[in-house]
């Protein structure tokens, strides 16, 4: 088993980083100037969160890897983000739904982490949770507004939900690494986090007149480095300069 604490930090950091990559793709292409600003702002928060978690992971690992080394010099199988965040920007409905589902897990997770037995985790979470409260206020409002908007906006939001819902299984999954950290009080017990996620999404989708698909389809694996085919392209783009010109400063 990999070091549980390091794995946890990488999972948190990788989620933020890969979501920031997807978010950053919208810059200049969003449906309203306010959304260009909001997406850039969220991307900025997510990059800041990446720096905090990957730095902590690198320090805990003790091999001298910086946050940048971890972001730019690992391969696809070494990334541990959930598959949800790597899903493409099919349209703005997908981008918003992806963000909302992530936020709906992220907030209760961080809420639990602010009670961590590990002081460093408490400090990072206390900072990050303030940003994420704002993220979910925004993403929830938009999901409701567009779900309960026009026929077209509802159809697009429902389409995005149908496609992305199976990936929430990856977001909510836990394994022996989580069990170990939960037992030591480093991370919260998964049950209340899942409960909060379910309550949040049920209320929002009811207000948005959207329906959670009950196909039973689940997609998991990202947390253990098994990704969808999109992931390799995200890294190829993101890591291009560091891979092409190794060992220089930027």
């Amino acid at each position, binding site marked *: 088993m990999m070091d549980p604490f390091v794995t946890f930090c990488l999972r948190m950091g990788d989620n933020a980083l890969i979501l920031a990559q997807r978010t950053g793709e919208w810059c200049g292409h*969003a449906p309203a100037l306010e959304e260009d600003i909001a997406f850039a702002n969220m991307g900025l928060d997510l990059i800041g969160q990446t720096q905090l978690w990957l730095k902590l992971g690198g320090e805990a690992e003790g091999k001298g890897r910086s946050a*940048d080394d971890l972001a730019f010099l690992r391969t696809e199988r070494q990334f541990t983000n959930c598959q949800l965040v790597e899903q493409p920007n099919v349209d703005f409905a997908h981008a918003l739904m992806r963000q909302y589902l992530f936020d709906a897990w992220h907030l209760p997770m961080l809420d639990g982490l602010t009670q961590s037995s590990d002081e460093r985790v408490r400090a990072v979470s206390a900072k990050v949770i303030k940003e994420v409260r704002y993220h979910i206020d925004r993403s929830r409002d938009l999901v409701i507004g*567009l779900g309960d908007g026009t026929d*077209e906006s509802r159809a697009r939001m429902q389409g995005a939900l149908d496609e992305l819902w199976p990936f929430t299984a990856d977001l909510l999954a836990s394994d022996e690494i989580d069990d170990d950290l939960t037992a030591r009080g480093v991370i919260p017990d998964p049950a209340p986090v899942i409960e909060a996620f379910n309550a949040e999404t049920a209320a929002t989708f009811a207000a948005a007149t959207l329906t959670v698909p009950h196909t039973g389809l689940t997609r998991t694996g990202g947390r253990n480095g098994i990704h969808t085919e999109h992931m390799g392209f995200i890294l190829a783009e993101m890591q291009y*300069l560091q891979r092409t010109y190794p060992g*220089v400063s930027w």
Partner: protein
Amino acid sequence: MYAQLVETEKAGGTPEEQAFQKRIDDGIKIEPKDWMPEGYRKTLVRQIGQHAHSEVVGQLPEGNWITRAPTLERKAILLAKVQDEAGHGLYLYCAAETLGVSRDEMTEQLLAGKSKYSSIFNYPTLSWADIGAIGWLVDGAAIMNQVQLQRCSYGPYSRAMIRICKEESFHQRQGFDILRVLCQGSDEQKEMAQDAMNRWWWPSLMMFGPSDKDSVHTAQSMRWGIKQATNDDLRQKFVDQTVPQADWLGLKVPDPELKWNEDKGGYDFGEPDWNEFFNVVKGNGPCNKERLEARRKAWDDGAWFRDGLMAHAEKKRAAKVAAE
């Protein structure tokens, strides 16, 4: 600086217009509810509109590198910068709205190709060093122009400029810092920096607009206090400020005629290729087509989003009225 070749209306000589001119000459700001000649209003709408569009279109060449920025810190800085540009667009549209034209109308004019944006954004960003060059040269040229626009006679534009200038100076520093690191780096990085310099230098000088002798709009804009300095004066100041910085970086300015002139206390420099400039302004630059297409696609693809939110707001309003 993001406004070039702004067509300026003619002034008339009525008593009202003379009183208006006196206010400007006395340095009193014109505010939205004040009387103003129609020509002044139209000229400002064009200039502020162009400026706002430039900020919005300007997101595209830099946004092109957000997913490829080489470190987390550079990525964060670039995101913050592009976010600022979109924010500048927003305050400029608001300033123009005080003159009675809506953001949607201005957007439609941009997308129809009727309203222009700065020629500079029609050049491609081909390497990471281009992001440095845009910050250092393009934002540097923009600041040179915007500093004088802080004193513009129209209050809302002047105040927007004061705010924008503060952020632009951070942009310029981050661009210079990208190039500083590249110029102190490997041979390949230095080459990347010099290549960016070679490609961005002349288009940056063109940002100030044509030479004063060919600039038909400058005189009236200056009388109205919309513009405070001429294109050539600003270009000269920019060259004088930038050449020592290029020397410090170890970058060669791609102008064989560049030479210090002791008598005038400034540099002599070559003439930009004005055919290229007018061609880019006409729509034939390397990226005009892509830039407008990207903005049209964002607007068209986003129609369902804007309509959806409007419909939801309407439902909420109706429910509130029904409850009362």
